[in-house]
């Protein structure tokens, strides 16, 4: 057999061949060589699991942010409706109640917009990119919400003596639509 060592030992009748066979050492289960052929397959499987995990996390985050965006758009609609009612309400306790409701809805909108901005703000790497290119850094409609509040509650909104007024309704609706559009546009830029 290949690998055998033959030693010829001289004897009285000539040389006597002694064959020394070196048997392969039986492999122990603790030896790495036993598992080496499986390593590439394991690496590929782990890489695949990691990629699937990352894609799943990204999908879940996109869904979470989409829900926040839909929440902000819902809050815009509620604030628009409340402010419209307050502008149209006749003088009296109903108007006071409607004004109070408007400010409360606008604050809720501001809180949700602030939360959305903070939870979608991109990290350090994108901040560096932003130095060289104009990229969307977060879903940020805080400025638009401030303008919406200014437009919806500007004088004479809280003047108890003012008449019912519908002159601001279309501007309020237009501003609400602008916030909707901006949320959609920024979300699509971040998560297309």
């Amino acid at each position, binding site marked *: 057999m290949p690998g055998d060592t033959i030693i010829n030992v001289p004897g009285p009748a000539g040389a006597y061949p002694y064959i020394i066979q070196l048997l392969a050492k039986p492999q122990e289960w603790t030896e790495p060589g036993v598992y080496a052929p499986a390593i590439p397959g394991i690496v590929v499987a782990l890489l695949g699991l990691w990629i699937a995990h990352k894609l799943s996390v990204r999908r879940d985050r996109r869904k979470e942010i989409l829900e926040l965006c839909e929440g902000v758009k819902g809050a815009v609609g509620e604030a628009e409706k409340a402010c419209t009612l307050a502008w149209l309400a006749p003088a009296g306790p109903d108007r006071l109640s409607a*004004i*109070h409701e*408007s*400010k*409360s*809805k*606008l*604050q809720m909108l*501001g*809180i949700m*917009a*602030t939360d959305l*901005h903070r939870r979608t703000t991109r990290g350090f790497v994108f901040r560096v990119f932003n130095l060289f290119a104009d990229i969307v850094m977060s879903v940020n409609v*805080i*400025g638009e*919400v*401030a303008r919406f*509040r*200014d437009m919806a*509650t*500007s*004088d004479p*909104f*809280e*003047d*108890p003596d003012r008449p019912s007024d519908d002159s601001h309704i279309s501007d309020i609706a237009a501003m609400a639509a602008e916030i909707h559009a901006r949320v959609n546009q920024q979300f699509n830029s971040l998560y297309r």
Partner: protein
Amino acid sequence: MREIAISLARDFSRHPGPRTNSQGRNSGERFRRLLVEKLKNADVITVDLDGTSGIGSSFLDEAFGGLVRREGFLADEVLRRVRVKSELDESYLVTIHDSIVRAKSLATA
């Protein structure tokens, strides 16, 4: 440098009202007077806007923009000495900043 902190909800009202005293209670005009009193005793005031039921833009304009328009403060001085914070709704900060800048433009016009 003496700094004091005040809370709009705790030290003034949880329900900020309209612009002027003649329009209703807890007005921006009344809050502005409170700010002026505090500014006499402190170099910097930090105003916390959280905890209210909602603040109208005319209240904020009268309270903060009014410091420039009516009380004679310089806009830069107001921006330096009156710090506004809101952990919950950052849009208030934008409104207040715009009010002060608008008041500055009117003052210099």
